[in-house]
């Protein structure tokens, strides 16, 4: 049971929550339900995400892990007839409250998508876009500094510093995805969501992104949806297994992969279905 800082309490007692990092939970979700029209995609999911740690969400296709991830920065608002119920607490505030502006929320919760999706603009403008719209930079030099810092942190600076004005789409797939990560951290978020960030990349590019995720762990709360169990094992400290819109099991990554408590988790991990 997580009881640090008088914080959230897991509703489901069977899911004991091991402490993977020393920081408290950054996001705490309680009884999340998601509906597409009449169909319910997520059933009563409660989970919390600690700061400065990577939590991975695994599960077979269509189990609702991406849908759940999109709840955390209210990206589901942009989908017609999608409805989210339940509380998602961030710093004690429910982000689903009507008076929370999703625009502001998304400046605190960054996101990286399955397919690299750089804007059809220059590399520089891709990174600078977020700081510009949110008014985070005072003048050109400040903006230059943010761009450089973000690119450095994403491990892309050395590759692109001579061609910042080249279109973002001219980069390779792996570089594009790191550009998207740099773009996300340029807004200085507190949380980064990653929706299968490596599924469109080759193994070498994947390895670089994974290294990057490991680096970023020291500063951010990271939630990553992945298809690959090896990846989950490599990058995350905690893992949640989703199945048919439910969390089947949640625990330390080591434990989930070596000694799953649930039969369904074991079946999935050993490749009986997926």
């Amino acid at each position, binding site marked *: 049971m997580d009881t640090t800082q008088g914080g959230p309490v897991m509703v489901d007692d069977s899911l004991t929550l091991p402490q993977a990092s020393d920081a408290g939970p950054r996001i705490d979700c309680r009884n999340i339900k998601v509906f597409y029209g009449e169909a319910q995609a997520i059933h009563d999911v409660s989970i919390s995400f600690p700061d400065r740690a990577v939590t991975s969400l695994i599960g077979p296709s269509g189990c609702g892990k991406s849908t759940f991830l999109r709840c955390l920065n209210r990206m589901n608002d942009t989908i017609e007839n999608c409805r989210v119920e339940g509380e998602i607490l961030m710093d004690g505030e429910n982000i689903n409250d009507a008076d929370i502006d999703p*625009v502001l929320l998304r400046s605190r919760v960054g996101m990286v998508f399955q397919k690299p999706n750089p804007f059809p603009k220059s590399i520089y403008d891709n990174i600078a876009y977020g700081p510009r719209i949110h008014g985070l930079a005072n003048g050109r030099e400040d903006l230059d500094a943010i761009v450089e810092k973000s690119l450095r942190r994403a491990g892309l600076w050395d590759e692109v510093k001579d061609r910042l004005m080249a279109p973002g789409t001219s980069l390779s797939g792996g570089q594009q995805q790191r550009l998207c990560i740099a773009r996300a951290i340029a807004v200085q978020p507190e949380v980064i969501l990653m929706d299968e960030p490596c599924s469109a990349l080759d193994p070498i590019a994947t390895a670089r992104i994974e290294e990057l995720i490991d680096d970023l762990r020291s500063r951010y709360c990271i939630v990553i949806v992945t298809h690959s169990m090896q990846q989950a094992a490599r990058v995350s400290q905690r893992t949640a297994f989703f199945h048919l819109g439910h969390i089947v099991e949640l625990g330390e990554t080591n434990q989930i992969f070596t000694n799953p408590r649930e039969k369904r988790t074991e079946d999935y991990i050993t490749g009986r279905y997926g």
Partner: protein
Amino acid sequence: MTDTARPSTPATAAAKHLKRRRAADGRFRYYGLSAILVALGALAILVLTIGSQALSAATYNVVRYDITLDPAVIAPDGATRPEDISRNVEGFYSLVRDNLLATFPEAQADRESRRELSDFATRLAVLPTARMVARNPELVGGAITLTAPLNDDLDLYLKGQGVRERKVKAGTVSVGQAGEDGLYALTGAGAFDPLLAALVVATDDLADDASAPGVLLTAGVSTGRLTNITSASARLELLTGQAQDFANARPVARIIVSPEAERTVSDHQIAWTLALKAMGRVDRVLRTTLLTNSDSTYPELAGGLSAIVGSLLTMLVTALVAMPIGILAAVYLEEFAPRNRITEFIEVNINNLAAVPSIVFGLLGAALYINFLGMPRSAPLVGGLVLALMTFPVVIIASRAALKAVPPSVRSGALAVGASQMQTVFHHVVPLAAPGMLTGAILGMARALGETAPLLLIGMVAFVGDVPKGPMDESTVMPVLIFSWSNNAERAWEPLTAALIVILLAFLLLMNGLVVFLRRKYERRW
């Protein structure tokens, strides 16, 4: 942004701008909404103005004349053959004129009055009756009721469109004897107060230098012009009827703002029209002649029949040429064409042809068909061929889309049982794509039906009084007739043009409705 500080500062920084950004967001949405509203509003105004004009032309006023078919007039010198009678427009017309003169004997007085009275019906308006009598010669010598449309300006007057006037009811008056100047004195305490009040309002609207508005006073079949109006008295110049009719009758006064010289109808004509109406000889009836008559120089007789038939003949030619060529070309390009320079060039050509201004096709038609091949001007055949050149790129593009929508599995299925490519295409793919091709072709035809400019250049703008019998006859089409009518100066053409537009739009609506029906019926999701 340091590593130790919680990155809460950026969010607060962003929050500062949020209000401004949200306001911009709302404004932007509002721009989009207003753009839509402007576009829809323009459409609504267009539909409403044309619709209301057309509605006023949907009915018109006809006058009944009880006449006796005097053989001496109808069949003078024993010209009793049907074709002689039907050609004797002058004879029938003289009966109508005599009837009017008998009704309004005051018009006998001078030439000008006689002319004004004979304007009530045009000569050609008696033609249907003449033809009817020619078919039934036994009517000669008997009495019949001839119905003829009222002159277009008087028709507009009765519909309240030609002349700005204001109606006021006067009080009860008594009528004195006619003075030396022929004017009658009307008296009645306060009888003219409402009229005087209305006159003040009416004069207020006018420019300072305008002449004073005229006032007509009507009681039953009698009408006169009022002058020297005071609260209790006025002088009446009788235009038609009996002065006695005004006594104890609460007559109606009409303030007519525009001076007589600037009007198309005179005070006398208004008086007579009101009298005919009071006699119950004027009926407002549905203007079926719009669909049964051909073009005429008189608006009250004009109809769109010749243009409708001309349009149908033209469309027939267009369909017979553009649809097979367009569909076969699409089949070739989609199913057979090798990817090479020639087919690429053809495709570029088709896309460009679909965007060439229609008037250029008119120039092509004039140069190629009329000048080079020596085809006749103004013929539906030539018009149809010009429109076919315009339409077939549209048919090709739509047909190709329909063929593309047929899944490759159908083709491989047919090829797998040993059908040749030609058999595969014509036995399986084309039947499946047929509804789509057909709807594309109909849409192309609808566009051609509304086309005007190219047809002007090949002489289809000529006045055509007869219904064309074949594709080589001189003819016009609906949009061109709309154009010709809208060029006519008389005010009565405006509603008539709008009515013809409504007929054209009805045809277009029908074709589009057919497309919607076909899509509903044959829509297939693969």
